[in-house]
């Protein structure tokens, strides 16, 4: 507990403002509060230490000690694993929740298993592909997540299986669909649910939200096979699910840094809409002359994934509670509906589709601008201005306007930025 509070308490007590009992309770409250960040720091250093030692062992293993015989090398392959297992046992048998020990030993065992497998491959010159190595490693490490109840092990596991899926899904042999990835991800789902249920505002849960948010964006593209243009639709729908999830209870009360669904969703939708705001996008990238993918659309995985995600987005949209205030509705909430309609429209007229998209972006820019100035929030205000500026800049590629005019418009926009920010700051100070 910091000194000034203690001094103040004594002062208040001696002046008779606080009773001794209340003062003690206040003291106890602050003492409890101080304990939590320091224990969090121990966890961080515990994990960091385990990562460094584990990676160090992997590097030492990579040296490939020739002077030792096969037997000795094999024994050494298992030493870090056994050490990790002993550390895990110790952490579990200690009384009370020893987060630093739990997380540290779990991470160490995780890395030690990877080193052990690598060393065996080296000793026997097993060529083995990287994906097979990662798969074995991750399957061996999955029980650590549950046994040690370890957030870090779970994050490493998700990272590992994503790497595995990327090798299969995006690598030279990308004809293989990494279906196993989804099963492996599902195996971690109970742990993530437990985090959601028990530690909703913990860093561990937020880190999982960010990881899952990014991982799904990475792996979704692997489903692109026969009807690849439909993946644009799938991505907008996934981002819409993110955005709607992030702007509803229980996530809506979180800060932006702890709410990856809102952050990724809004940013992703805006980027995809800016791409789609060019009419060439519809005429060249989506409906490339013959639009041959439409013929095999219903047999492709892309359409079913898009529809599934759209179904989830519609469900979330209908669940939203703020329908009665029409002016409060963020255009990004129903952007996916516009995109789906535009996808149909784009087949007939690419210019018409682009116009639709531009209108939505304009609406989104104005919405944030208005929200920012009404609430005196500089973040929203500047996001709104940024959307409008980018939209205008993009349109300059389309139309043939003289440089002087473009220059003047940009100067005016820049002045707009200054003026809007200045006004809000002045409002705040007064």
């Amino acid at each position, binding site marked *: 507990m910091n000194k000034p509070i203690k001094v103040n308490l004594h002062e208040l007590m001696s002046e008779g403002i606080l009773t001794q009992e209340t003062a003690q309770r206040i003291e106890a409250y602050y003492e409890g509060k101080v304990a939590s960040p320091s224990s969090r720091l121990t966890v961080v250093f515990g994990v960091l230490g385990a990562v460094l030692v584990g990676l160090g062992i992997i590097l030492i293993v*990579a040296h490939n000690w020739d002077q030792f015989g096969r037997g000795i090398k094999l024994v050494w392959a*298992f030493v870090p*694993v056994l050490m990790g297992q002993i550390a895990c046992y110790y952490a*579990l048998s200690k009384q009370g929740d020893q987060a630093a020990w739990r997380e540290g030993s779990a991470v160490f065992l995780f890395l030690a298993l990877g080193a052990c497998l690598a060393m065996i491959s080296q000793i026997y010159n097993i060529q083995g592909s990287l994906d097979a190595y990662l798969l074995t490693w991750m399957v061996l490490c999955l029980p650590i997540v549950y046994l040690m109840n370890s957030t870090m092990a779970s994050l490493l596991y998700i990272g590992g299986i994503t790497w595995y899926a990327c090798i299969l899904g995006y690598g030279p042999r990308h004809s293989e669909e990494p279906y196993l990835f989804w099963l492996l991800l599902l195996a971690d789902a109970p742990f993530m649910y437990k985090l959601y249920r028990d530690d909703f505002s913990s860093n561990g849960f937020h880190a999982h939200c960010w990881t899952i948010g990014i991982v799904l964006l990475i792996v979704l593209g692997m489903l692109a096979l026969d009807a690849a243009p439909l993946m644009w639709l799938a991505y907008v729908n996934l981002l819409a699910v993110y955005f709607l999830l992030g702007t509803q209870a229980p996530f809506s009360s979180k800060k932006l840094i702890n709410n990856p669904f809102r952050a990724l969703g809004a940013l992703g939708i805006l980027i995809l809409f800016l791409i789609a705001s060019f009419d060439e996008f519809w005429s060249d990238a989506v409906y490339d002359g013959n639009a041959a993918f439409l013929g095999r659309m219903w047999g492709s995985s892309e359409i079913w994934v898009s529809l599934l995600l759209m179904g989830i987005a519609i469900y979330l949209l209908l669940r939203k509670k703020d329908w009665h205030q029409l002016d409060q509705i963020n255009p990004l909430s129903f952007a996916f509906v516009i995109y789906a309609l535009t996808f149909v429209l784009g087949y007939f007229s690419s210019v018409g589709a682009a116009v639709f998209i531009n209108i939505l972006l304009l609406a989104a820019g104005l919405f944030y601008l208005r929200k920012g100035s009404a609430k005196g929030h500089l973040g929203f205000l500047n996001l709104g201005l940024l959307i409008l500026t980018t939209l205008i800049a993009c349109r300059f590629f389309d139309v043939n306007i003289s440089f002087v005019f473009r220059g003047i418009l940009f100067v005016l926009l820049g002045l707009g930025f200054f003026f809007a920010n200045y006004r809000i700051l002045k409002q705040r100070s007064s």
Partner: protein
Amino acid sequence: MKNKWQLFFALVVLFQLAVPAKMIWDQEYVLAEGQSFRFKTRAYDPNDPFRGKYIRLAFEADILEGNYLSTEGWERGDQVCVWLENDADGFAKIQRITADKPTQMVPHLQAELDYVRDNGATIRVKYPFEKFYMEESKAPAAEKYYFDLLRKGEKTVYALVKVHQGEGVLQDVQVDGQSLRDLVEEIPAK
């Protein structure tokens, strides 16, 4: 309750030790039971960057010419079965390549199909033992030595591989009967 986590812990420990142990067992089994083959190595594209701690091997006997079996539907990356025999000098040679395992007792290896040319007359495979791991300080010198040997062509360089039931384990790389590891030891360090 306490016994419950300990049981789970014991199972996890067993699982984590059993899988690497099984990998070791499989390799040791081939080394103990397998038939030895000597695969003559050859130089490959010298521009391929050296990867640090292993020497990349390429083999003379990775191609089958004058194949008479059907290769319809075969695609690059497929697993195929390479039937092995020894040539007059006692080096490994491909007898035939099939999609399925041989039913009779023939020494064979599972390998990856590299390409099929001329309507199946020429087949090339990639063996699962193209990397020979060495200590990181010795690997660069060993590779230079290895390529000099191959370029001069005065000595025979080959990989000693144990083959058993489709599995192959690279035991050593030898130069006229001497291990490359020992030979590299004799090179004066620069």
